């Protein structure tokens, strides 16, 4: 997923990403950003929840002010539910405010999704439970009515099974590529919303040897402090190793 995200970050068809912000509790997008950066791209990364080297000196509002100023080019959002119009739900399922399952809350999504030119949606779990026809609660809308101030929409949705692109004019996803072991049919079966599908579906490229080495090495080094659990689980690295 990190590699697929990295490819999307550097998509030459999209507006340039000079300054990328990554929210709290987003280890996969963070890994993707570090991968882009460690591979040599000239991007500024602003990572929330980084205990040391936090770039913000105006308090936690600075990320949102930066976005308001138009200085953040790309952001990442997940969702407890995501629907076919790219609406995201971080609040809960059932009735307001989450009568069936309560999620943590909207965080900055209701602002960032509308103020940042590009958002990449990501969710590892690819199931009809997550990808629904219509979210129970809209934390942040996928598209906005004409006249409502909005600078961008979702560029893509990256899951554990595939990559979708998003067309805001049609408010509809289209399948772009499937990850190893998946097919157009297996993605369709696991997705609760309808989407467009090309006649032949490409495979998501495998990580290169260089990318794998960077992920296990320099990228993990940067992430150990903020995401020790993630690094242990994915790369079997302990936070102590770096210190030792």
């Amino acid at each position: 997923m990190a590699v697929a995200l990295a490819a999307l970050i550097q998509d030459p068809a999209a507006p340039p990403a000079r300054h990328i912000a990554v929210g709290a509790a987003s280890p996969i997008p963070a890994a993707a950003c570090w991968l882009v950066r460690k591979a040599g791209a000239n991007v500024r990364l602003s990572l929330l929840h980084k205990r040391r080297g936090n770039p913000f000196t105006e308090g936690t509002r600075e990320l949102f002010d930066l976005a308001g100023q138009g200085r953040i080019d790309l952001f990442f959002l997940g969702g407890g539910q995501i629907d076919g119009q790219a609406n995201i739900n971080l609040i809960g399922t059932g009735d307001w405010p989450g009568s069936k399952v309560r999620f943590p809350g909207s965080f900055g999504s209701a602002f960032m999704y509308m103020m940042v030119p590009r958002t990449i949606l990501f969710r590892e779990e690819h199931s009809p439970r997550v990808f629904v026809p219509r979210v129970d609660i809209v934390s942040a809308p996928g598209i906005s009515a004409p006249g409502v101030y909005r600078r961008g929409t979702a560029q893509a949705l990256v899951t554990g099974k595939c990559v979708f692109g998003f067309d805001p004019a049609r408010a509809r996803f289209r399948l772009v590529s499937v990850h190893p072991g998946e097919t157009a049919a297996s993605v369709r079966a696991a997705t609760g919303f309808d989407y467009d599908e090309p006649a032949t579906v490409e495979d998501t490229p495998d990580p290169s040897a260089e990318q794998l080495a960077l992920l296990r090495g320099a990228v993990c080094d940067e992430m150990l402090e903020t995401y020790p659990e993630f690094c242990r689980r994915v790369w079997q690295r302990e936070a102590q190793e770096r210190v030792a």
Partner: protein
Amino acid sequence: MDLLQLDALASLVLDGATVALPPDNSLPSCALVRALIRAGRKNLHLIGVPVSGYASDLLIGAGCVASIETSGVTLGEAGAAPRFVAALAAGTITVLDATCPAMHTMLQAAEKGVPFMPLRGIIGSDILAHRPDWKVIDNPFAPEIDPIVLLPALRPGFALFHAEMADTHGNVYVGRRRELATIAHASNRVLVTVEQVVDFDLLDDERLAPGTIGGAYVDHVAIAQRGAWPIGLPGCYDFDAAHFAEYARMARTDAGFQAYLQRYVYSDAALAAAE
């Protein structure tokens, strides 16, 4: 500045008070939160600036909280906030959902002494539909129709946080956690626990002044060594990830949570170790 004992500081927060708490990476006073639980405080209205974490979950689990206004409640890498989720399911608390920049904006309006402040975004989110106190107007500066959200000023009754040091004038050093300054400016009363009280004026030190909240905002200070624990205080002690994992595990059930309270909040041993 009035230097108090921790329990005396806690006694200033009355039942039913509105209490602003920073999130776990931004220095809530866990020592003061534990003291509030020991004091049996009830019906608090918590405000997460802009989100809430361990400190809020602890107060909710202990039955101190009637409502919480926040943009999210989470233990970070340790997962969901178990007592918040349980209390919401049980109907013992209500939640007023917001979005992070809206929390900041409402406090900035109070800081500035204006009744409201605008914010972009939000329109189309169900949050707006559930906030009758938020209004949409047509931007009077735009040549065409341009709806924009106005958020009311939010003035918490109390702001509670922990910091590395205070001086005898009530100036408090918060370093780069400047959101604490906004919370302090916006709140009626500011109660702070610190590792130590220094005997020089923090505002006279050109290197420390930029990270200092002026004593004009600080009502009372108490010394609570390791008062942020299990949260880390940069430069002093680290975030206790193992304890967070232990909390997340124990707090999955009410019985486990009660055992946690006994071990880490009520017991003298815990007091001696933590405070």
